[in-house]
């Protein structure tokens, strides 16, 4: 019991004999005696389903699930339509392997093809891959796509998510390229500093839209600057915002990447998430990972296959641009179902409500003495500063079951609002903050 083995003890002995052995130890005859595990593993004995479930419920019960959340910073609480969970938990979608055998995997392949199409629609780019691990690794993989013999410096905006910056930097440590940060100024990339840093060694410039601080970058001019120096521009985008904001395709980015978690994927303490990547026609052959393409079968019927595989590790081995094989296919399916359920109008509505509520929250907090730190336009996140310690405000909110913004330091808080936040909870949040600040 416990190990999900159907065959009984007796059946196993019969099989063992049929396979030509007289004892189970013979199966491991090649394992040198000296290194075999003596005794049993220092683990508790196996348990039946009910106690396992109780143990897991106990652990889950030791976490606090906030009903009211004003925290983003790379992971966002959005409404997930019921149909997303329903479809993404269907057993065959959950348990299939990577669709190597196309003839019996058309469902997975077509769903990825549809996902690729939707990502191209969102970003305005030409070609999308089938996904990578998350937004941060998507950014790091995109930087690797741009590195060449002559150009091996990666410029990363200091206004980008520090978690994403750390991952790009770690990947650069791996491949030996140079990682440089462009200082942040007023919540966005310092363009003066960027122009000083650009050189004929710059492979790419990574900028996040909206920035980590929620501010809107002038992507047109950043693109122009990068291209003027012969470098590529990688745009890290919030996918919900793309329903209303100018797209990477429109401002001329070479690669668009981002964290797909807002598209119907639960926050889940950080994962699994979804890295989306899309590129121009000029760059698409450098995209890492799986890509699904349309073709026909022997009878001329439309079908889908994993294609352009000669880019990948199982064929190109050490010359491959990336080592990725497993990706986040089921999360990509979630995103596709989410986008289908929301539709263009629904997604636009979600984006508008995020922005509207964030702006309402910002005004309400201003009334509580928490003033916005930056001056430019923002989407659904913003930073406040105040003389009242951030911890005091956040603690007070937590006591009322509200997860406030993310403390950036003792005084500054990064807030986020989405369509999930109601006017009542925003007003309450501001009122609690006001009590603490005493304004």
């Amino acid at each position: 019991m416990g190990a999900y083995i159907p065959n009984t003890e007796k059946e196993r002995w019969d099989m063992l004999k049929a396979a030509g052995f007289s004892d189970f130890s013979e199966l491991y005859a090649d394992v040198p005696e000296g290194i075999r595990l003596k005794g049993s593993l220092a683990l508790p004995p196996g348990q039946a389903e009910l106690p396992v479930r109780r143990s897991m419920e106990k652990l889950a019960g030791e976490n606090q699930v906030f009903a009211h959340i004003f925290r983003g910073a790379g992971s966002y609480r959005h409404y997930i339509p019921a149909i997303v969970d329903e479809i993404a938990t269907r057993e065959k979608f959950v348990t299939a392997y990577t669709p190597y055998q196309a003839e019996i995997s058309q469902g997975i392949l077509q769903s990825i093809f549809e996902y690729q199409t939707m990502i191209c629609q969102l970003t305005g780019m030409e070609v999308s891959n089938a996904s990578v691990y998350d937004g941060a690794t998507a950014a790091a993989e995109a930087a690797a796509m741009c590195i060449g013999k002559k150009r091996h410096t990666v410029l990363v905006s200091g206004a980008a998510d520090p978690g994403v910056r750390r991952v790009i930097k770690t990947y650069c440590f791996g491949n030996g390229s140079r990682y440089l940060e462009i200082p942040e100024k007023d919540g966005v990339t310092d363009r003066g500093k960027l122009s000083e840093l650009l050189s004929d060694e710059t492979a790419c410039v990574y900028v996040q839209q909206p920035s980590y601080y929620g501010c809107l970058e002038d992507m047109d001019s950043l693109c122009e600057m990068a291209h003027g120096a012969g470098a590529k521009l990688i745009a890290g985008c919030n996918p919900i915002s793309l329903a209303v904001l100018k797209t990477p395709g429109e401002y001329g980015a070479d690669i668009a990447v981002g964290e797909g978690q807002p598209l119907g994927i639960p926050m889940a303490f950080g994962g699994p998430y979804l890295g989306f990547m899309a590129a121009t026609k000029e760059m698409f052959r450098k995209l890492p990972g799986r890509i699904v393409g349309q073709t026909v079968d022997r009878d001329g019927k439309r079908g889908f296959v994993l294609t352009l595989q000669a880019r990948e590790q199982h064929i190109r081995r050490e010359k491959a641009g990336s080592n990725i094989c497993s990706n986040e296919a089921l999360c990509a399916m979630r995103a596709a179902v989410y986008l289908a359920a929301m539709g263009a109008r629904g997604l636009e509505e979600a984006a508008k409500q995020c922005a509207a509520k964030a702006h309402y929250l910002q005004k309400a907090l201003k009334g509580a003495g928490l003033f916005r730190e930056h001056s430019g336009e923002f989407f659904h996140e913003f930073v406040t500063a105040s003389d009242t310690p951030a911890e005091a405000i956040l603690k007070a909110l937590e006591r009322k079951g509200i997860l406030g913004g993310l403390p950036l330091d003792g005084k500054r808080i990064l807030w986020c609002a989405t369509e999930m936040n109601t006017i009542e909870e925003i007003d309450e949040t501001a009122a609690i903050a006001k009590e603490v600040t005493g304004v």
Partner: protein
Amino acid sequence: MKYPQELFYSKSHEWVKLKGDCAWIGITDFAQDALGDLVYVNLPEVGDEVTAGETFADVESVKAVSDIYSPVTGTVAEVNEALLDAPEAINQSPYEAWLIKVEGITDREELLSADAYQEMAEAEQK
């Protein structure tokens, strides 16, 4: 299998058409046949240096990628960009589908005549 007399051949199955200090390089009929349907070719850029015996391009089939070696040392003067959209030309007419034109040749590896190459290729097949 065709082995045009006017061309020279490398042991790694490239053909070379020499003219003055210029050379056009492609892959042989034997090579394209062994590689199967080609789906893409990665070419160098004009101005890149190529070195005799070193790889300068690769060709992709659905399930494999194969390096192409330069039989000469020199500078890439032209690349056959038409192959980027129609790699099947290499399968259809390998001796017209040149990959690159090299100029300023300073060195070249030992090349085979059509007959010698044919003999080598046929032996390899067995």
